[in-house]
């Protein structure tokens, strides 16, 4: 039976909206009068759905009835859109803000890293900042001193350690700040989206360090990120928050997949029953267009490995024309990734059908849209159906331990071989060097 180290029970948090200043003194007095003397219920603490707090425009329900448990040594990823209450949850567990209702029980020392460089002062030198920031995060003097060299080496700012940090480049500043936090040794580490900063190389280093913390030393980690790859790689379980409520809590890949498929703002299918209503003109009317991802598990999100089948039907309103269709794929930036024409076909009045499959392991991750163009005699435009399908491909890295943005418009898997041809080079190299 694993040891439960954090127990969150029916946690809710209400924020008051609007300017707090003028009128707040009056409100405070009213509240105090109502609760202390008239024994009325405080409107601030009524959290039932549809009741004052939820329905009132003056209040905002940041977290609503969240309960879960975390076992010793687990890494939990917390995901959700912006404003879904992730940071509020971390702040409550870090003891920075108080919940409005519910409670959190826990065991062991908690350190939270909600921001890179908390307590850093621009005027002070790197050395002074390492100490003060270490103390603020809960380290003792002896701890900071014993890790000082390691911290400096990790950050790579040895040369500038006695320079005020205001003269650091922003990259150096972030590296130093994270280095301090990375050397904390709490029982429970709470990390908010801090990896969004720094260059790719440094991000990799940070994630490596976090994996080391969670796997090698058995610490418990709560980790908020929008980087699903990082979450999948680092965490065992995930918690999906949606508008302050707990949507799913469970195994990391299950939760991440559900989350991703819910966020994909996609247009997978369009169809029309009669030509009169369908998009088109007096030559072409589109009956349907559909994107069919070739997924084994229909619940799963589309990722870069998924082959995508595009199927379409259209009414041809002219007799005896040499007709062809082109599938154009654009990325979100509007750049055309490819323009793929079909073979030209002699068509009669009536319904025609087209089909094409974009293979998996070809496109890079990102959002895309497809346009369909119809041509006569392979050169005369008949009708352009713009942005008829949109979809989003999630990233998949497999064993690759690199989480930066992958470059390139496409990410094909061409055959690529690397092999050793000769092992005797050693001697030649040495000769050359002498």
């Amino acid at each position: 039976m694993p040891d439960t180290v954090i127990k969150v029970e029916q946690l809710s948090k209400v924020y008051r909206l609007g300017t707090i200043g003028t009128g707040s003194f009056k409100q405070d007095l009213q509240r105090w009068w109502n609760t202390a003397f008239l024994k009325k219920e405080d409107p601030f603490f009524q959290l039932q759905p549809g009741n004052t707090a939820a329905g009132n425009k003056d209040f905002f329900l940041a977290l609503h009835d969240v309960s879960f448990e975390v076992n010793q040594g687990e890494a939990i990823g917390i995901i959700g859109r912006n404003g879904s209450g992730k940071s509020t949850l971390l702040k409550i567990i870090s003891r920075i803000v108080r919940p409005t209702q519910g409670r959190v029980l826990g065991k062991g020392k908690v350190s939270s890293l909600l921001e890179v460089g908390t307590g850093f002062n621009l005027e002070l030198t790197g050395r002074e900042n390492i100490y003060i920031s270490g103390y603020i995060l809960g380290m003792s003097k002896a701890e900071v001193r014993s890790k000082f060299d390691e911290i400096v080496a990790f950050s790579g700012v040895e040369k500038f350690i006695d320079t005020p940090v205001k003269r650091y480049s922003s990259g150096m500043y972030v590296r130093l700040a994270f280095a301090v936090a990375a050397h904390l040794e709490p029982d429970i580490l709470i990390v908010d989206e801090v990896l969004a900063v720094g260059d790719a190389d440094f991000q990799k280093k940070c994630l490596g360090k976090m994996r080391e913390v969670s796997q090698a030393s058995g610490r418990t980690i709560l980790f908020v990120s929008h980087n699903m790859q990082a979450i999948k790689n680092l965490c065992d379980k995930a918690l999906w928050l949606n508008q302050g409520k707990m949507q799913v809590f469970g195994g990391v890949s299950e939760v991440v997949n559900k989350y991703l498929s819910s966020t994909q703002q996609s247009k997978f299918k369009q169809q029309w029953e009669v030509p009169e209503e369908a998009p088109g003109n007096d030559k072409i009317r589109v009956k349907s267009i559909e994107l069919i991802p070739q997924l084994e598990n229909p619940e799963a999100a589309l990722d870069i490995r998924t082959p995508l089948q595009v199927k379409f039907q259209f009414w041809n309103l002219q007799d005896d024309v040499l007709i062809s269709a082109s599938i154009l794929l654009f990325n979100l930036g509007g750049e055309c990734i490819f323009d793929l024409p079909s073979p030209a076909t002699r068509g009669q009045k009536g319904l025609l059908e087209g089909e094409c499959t974009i293979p998996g392991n070809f496109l890079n991750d990102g959002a895309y849209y497809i346009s369909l163009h119809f041509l006569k005699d392979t050169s005369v435009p008949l009708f352009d159906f713009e942005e008829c399908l949109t979809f989003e491909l999630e990233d998949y890295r497999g064993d690759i331990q690199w989480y930066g943005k992958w470059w390139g418009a496409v990410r094909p898997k061409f055959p690529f071989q690397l092999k050793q041809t000769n092992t005797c080079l050693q001697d030649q190299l040495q000769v050359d060097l002498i």
Partner: protein
Amino acid sequence: MIKAVNSWDWEIGNKTSFWSHTLKELWAFRHLLAGLVRRHFLLNYQQTVLGPLWILFQPTLTLATYLLVFHKLVGISTGSVPPVLFYLAGIILWNFFNDSFTGTSSTFKEHAHVFSKVYFPRIIMPVSVISTQLLRFAIQFIMLLCAMVFYSFTRGFSFPVNSWLLTIPFIVLNVGAFSLGLGLIFSVLTAKYRDMTNLANLGVRLLMFLTPVIYPLATIPENVRWLVQLNPLTPMFELFRLAMLGEGTIALPSILYSLGFTFLLLTGAWLLFNKQGDKLIDIV
């Protein structure tokens, strides 16, 4: 805030308590306190030419001004005490109160950013301000002693050696506790109602005129003296001068009044600060 609930080490609920921290928890953060004091000193004198000499310069310049205005122009009597020593003693004790109060009263406003990102006992911040001011006071106190030695050699000022000297640590502690108490209350108030910042700044400036900094209590006419004596700082300033310079008007009831007032103020303020501290993060 930390309570052992069965096998749990800590619990975070919606109730805030008056006694937020155990002594053990505060002790664990002693390095932070020391680090913050160090930071206050470093920050104050970063990129200044005179550096820490400002600790001595600032009261000296104030002294020169007071000598010119209150001694030469207005002509307030300082009794048998040389004006330089009289004003200097008042200035350093007042500065200690003034800087401690203004430093602690902006705790939440100034550190809202740090408070909203990381947890540590909030009380560490204002206590670090008081500690810093206490160190500054100690340095200025030595300066006062030097001035006294100088005067006893050159101007025949008789160095008072009496049992009142023993009260000096208690005077300083009492003034420190009073400023901390007042500062904590105002730190909560200024976080909630920004108007209080102005009130605090103005109030502390006016309070100086109700404190025997630039005049001895004895020169105040009897019929308005109660107004000055209502101020709990007054007995402390008089006692300080009596101990250091051998002249001051004190009475046991007023000293007890001052001590009692400070004790109640600090206790109340401490409780208020702990009770309100966690809630304030939502609104600062």
